[in-house]
């Protein structure tokens, strides 16, 4: 009975949103200027020489929220290596992002794309939209949808970019 209840719970719990990391074929890296929750501006050039995961997300986006812990695990596993996460919220009020941040503490900084214009330039139409930037400043991989960032295939790609 308990097993049946658990099975029902699992099937009703929600739906996965499996994405895969695909090679980027969208051309040059678009302009990127966002601000953190304290209002300080960040540009991609500030992270030159590092591998950067640019992740566009929103609090209303269930798969965005679901994948965040895996981003945190990836980041923790790469401590001491030149790897940064820029998690950019799409066009939500600061107060909402701050409340989200308090409710779900994460080890990486949350950024703001106030009016969603940066996300539109990056063609982040389907959230979460994640872009892996190599140390050369170019986008190498993209994923639209939820991804387990701590999975072995993804770690392998990130480690390749770190070489």
């Amino acid at each position: 009975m308990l097993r049946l209840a658990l099975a029902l719970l699992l099937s009703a719990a929600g739906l996965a949103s499996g994405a895969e990391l695909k090679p980027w074929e969208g051309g040059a890296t678009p302009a990127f200027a966002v601000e953190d929750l304290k209002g300080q501006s960040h540009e991609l050039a500030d992270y030159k020489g590092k591998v950067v995961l640019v992740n566009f997300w929103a609090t209303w986006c269930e798969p965005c929220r679901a994948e965040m812990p895996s981003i945190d695990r990836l980041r923790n596993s790469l401590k001491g290596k030149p790897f940064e996460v820029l998690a950019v919220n799409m066009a939500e009020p600061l107060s909402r992002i701050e409340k989200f941040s308090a409710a779900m503490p994460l080890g990486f900084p949350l950024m703001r794309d106030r009016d969603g214009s940066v996300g539109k330039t990056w063609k982040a139409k389907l959230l979460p939209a994640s872009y892996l930037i190599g140390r050369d400043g170019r986008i190498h991989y993209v994923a639209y949808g939820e991804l387990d960032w701590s999975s072995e295939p993804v770690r392998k790609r990130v480690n390749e970019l770190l070489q």
Partner: protein
Amino acid sequence: MNRRNFLKSTTAVAVAQALPLHGFAAEGWRTFETVTRVEVKDSFGVARAWVPLPLEMDTSWQKAIGNSWSGNAKTAEVKHDGKYGISMLYAEWSDKEMNPVIEVTSRFMTLDRATDFSRQDKSIDLSAADRKFFTAPTELIPTDGIVRKMALDITKGAKGDVEKSRAIYEWIVDNTFRDPKTKGCGVGDVKSLIESGNLGGKCADLNALYVGLSRSIGIPARDVYGVRVAPSNYGYKSLGAGTPNVSKAQHCRAEFFAQGYGWVAVDPADVRKVVLEEPPGNLPIKDEKVVAARKRLFGSWEMNWLAYNMGHDVKLPNATKAPKLPYLMYINAEADGELRDQMEPDSVRYTITAREVTV
């Protein structure tokens, strides 16, 4: 979904529910969320679905914020048709998935729009290429022969694009009717509509007639396909979504372009909807509610409605059998290589729910 994902998701949902609802609203803008759930029932073989997404282009009356999806699709991605830039979420399931399901969440903002005909800015114009594009025929909207002859008759004596457009609008309101028996929103076969002499239909018919007549005399015009997402704030029960379930609330509108004013919103089909459906129903054309709607719907739209796209002759990407659809306003799906009937929600089994996200 495995246990790790289940725990991860439920934690995330709990976090989200603890948050207050906000809109990112500038003056007058409203934020909405739609959730479209699609189930391709009785699927044997590869299944596919195409879900229209909010208009990608930012306008002065609608801005897309973003979309997300969840489900058991093998792949899901945003795709476009080639000609009109229609955006849709394309999902595909393997033949091993017996119960294909996907949920697409979209957020967008809208603002009521109205053209002030007392203020003209002569610098506002269309490029020659756009003018050509928006006066071209489509497969179901020819711009010659009987259509053009009718448009010339209707606009006889009218001067300028605004006056001519108004003449066409008034003619449609006076001479067509909303036919409740029309399936879905209609097909929009303008030539057949005129030739049959039976000028009944729904929005995709009556507003396509408007677009065809306009285009045939050189006035740029376009259909805009979408779905109602909220009740009307102007007291019209028939012009709003009565419940959060908007699965059958699809509605298309129309625009024409007038030099000096830009794209102008019109909706003669909704005037006919008020006539037929506004309680107590079958209102006379001179009823004050009809008169008010008629006045309002030349030049303005209440934005309790989501615009998907402005496309015609849509070819669904990756479809096994790919007949051109006259438009993309419904959820489409195929299984076993057969396209399901897009105008029958039970054939594809989809639900669309909408809610306003308030500050």
